[in-house]
């Protein structure tokens, strides 16, 4: 049981409308301390979680977008975003926040964590995980 497991967080819900996005993110932040192999998947309305430029002041709720950006500091390096989900919603990678990590194996070069994948690749990513946390 000391082996490293592949944890995949599957995010399919829009932010703000329900707490699923925020409380899923809180699991990722805590989970980062456990030295497992962590990946995040964003598909369906989950891709809205990464759209940049949130301003929640008029809504009166907490703006938790900075926490996504900070995921790189928690050593989260794999963020899979489904292309078909973006396209259906009129979005492209340019609409998304920047998410980066420092690559230890490449002189700590700052690299993007976001990987746009096809629906077919997303299915394989799910199939390849050891544990799926579904939000």
């Amino acid at each position, binding site marked *: 049981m000391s082996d490293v497991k592949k944890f995949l967080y599957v995010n399919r819900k829009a932010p*703000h*409308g*329900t*707490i699923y996005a925020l409380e899923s993110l809180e699991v990722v932040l805590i989970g980062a301390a456990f030295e497992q192999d962590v990946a995040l998947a964003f598909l369906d309305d989950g891709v809205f979680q990464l759209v940049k430029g949130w301003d929640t002041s008029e*809504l*009166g*709720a*907490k703006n938790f977008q900075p926490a996504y950006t900070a995921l790189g500091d928690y050593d989260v390096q794999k963020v899979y975003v489904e292309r078909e989900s973006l396209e259906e919603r009129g979005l492209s990678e340019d609409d998304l926040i920047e998410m980066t990590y420092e690559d230890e194996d490449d002189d700590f070069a700052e690299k993007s964590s976001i990987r746009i994948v096809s629906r077919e690749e997303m299915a394989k990513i799910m199939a390849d995980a050891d544990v799926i946390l579904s939000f």
Partner: protein
Amino acid sequence: MKLGIVVLEGPYQHEASDTAYNFTVAALEKGHEVFRVFFYHDGVNNATRLMVPPQDDRHIQKRWSELAEKHNLDLVVCVAAAQRRGILDEDEMKRHGKDANNIAPGFRISGLGQLIEAGIQCDRLVFFGD
């Protein structure tokens, strides 16, 4: 105008509770009368004084209680929905032999008739839910 507001979802889990609050504030600012805010389904969970949200976030119960105090609002929690979900005032606590209650100041527990009455009395009834 006389407005009635219905909240069907609980705090933090759904935005409905925020929208209802922001709408109520705006209606009061516009000079309308808010006849009643009726909490039903999981909406009753807005009324617990035991919630302790993170300090950098809104306190959903407190802001309802404070709005009620400031504007003398009638915040009514449906008794049947509240019982199911464990929202009790002192009377309900005693009646059901429970050892604690959790209702917040400014909320009162009453029956579904209060919702119907709001429908009859108000010029507009606005629902917020999932």
